[in-house]
């Protein structure tokens, strides 16, 4: 930043609050790799198709979907929502401490995030098992076909997210993010937030409405 006290500076330069257009552009940076964001967009599109398909099917089979939703554990869905949101918070905090060049601290925050993700997985498996005990499977009816397909597809993304988080934690622990190049770390955290973003749409659609 050019000091305002320099008398030879141009009018634009002497105003520290007014940045040049190119400076404004450089401030706006997409976190992580561009490829990851395109991948996230592709994933969001696939889930959007699932969500729309679910809503249309519900309109075509209102009674079946109302009965099906009544058999789900809404409280388990809420616990999972809280688990994923809390996990996302720890991932966001991990990225913050990585910016402060404290990789070991970031690793512990990532491990905490993974613990909440494991809570999500445990609750989801318990939910599946309790439905199986009632004799409900993917073939029971259209509602449960879509329920198992969408939630299991999301669960697969949670598992992949866990692997990605483990990888970035490993890389951070061994100081692989040198020269403040956090692109890989940011890509991993962005993927995890996508998993959270999908759940906050999935949860009300399948469990609440």
């Amino acid at each position, binding site marked *: 930043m050019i000091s305002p006290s320099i008398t030879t500076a141009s009018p634009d330069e002497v105003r520290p609050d007014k940045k040049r257009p190119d400076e404004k552009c450089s401030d706006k940076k997409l976190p992580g790799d561009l490829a990851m964001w395109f991948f996230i967009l592709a994933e969001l599109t696939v889930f959007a198709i699932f*969500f729309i398909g679910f809503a249309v099917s519900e309109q075509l089979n209102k009674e079946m979907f109302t009965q099906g939703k009544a058999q789900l554990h809404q409280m388990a869905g809420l616990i999972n929502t809280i688990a994923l*949101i809390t996990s*996302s918070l720890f991932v966001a905090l991990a990225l913050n401490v990585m910016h402060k060049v404290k990789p070991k601290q970031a690793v512990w925050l990532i491990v905490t995030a993974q613990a909440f993700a494991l809570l999500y997985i445990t609750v989801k498996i318990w939910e599946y098992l309790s439905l199986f005990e009632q004799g409900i499977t993917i073939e029971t009816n259209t509602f449960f076909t879509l329920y198992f397909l969408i939630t299991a597809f999301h669960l697969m993304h949670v598992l992949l997210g866990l692997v990605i988080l483990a990888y970035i934690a490993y890389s951070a622990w061994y100081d692989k993010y040198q020269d403040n190049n956090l692109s890989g770390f940011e890509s991993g955290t962005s993927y995890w937030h996508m998993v959270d973003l999908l759940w906050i749409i999935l949860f*009300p659609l399948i469990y609440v409405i």
Partner: protein
Amino acid sequence: MQKHKAVSGAIISWIVLIVLSVIAIYLPTYIDNRSHYIICVLIIVLLKGQQIVDVFMELNNAPKIWRRLFLSYIVLLPLLISVIYLM
């Protein structure tokens, strides 16, 4: 200072997200009309999505096109779903 703000912003967002999630569950107790209930829940989805996109994903500091792209997703998808439910 900015990093400190980022931490407090993330924690505030987390609280907002938790509160909105709990509200969404208990809404039927207070709203009898199904159409109104669906609209309220989908507005909550929109508010939660905006918090995740802007604060957790940090897209409020990203090029505008990316922020608009993700915000349009969390606006258009609930809008489309509400149209389907209210038809």
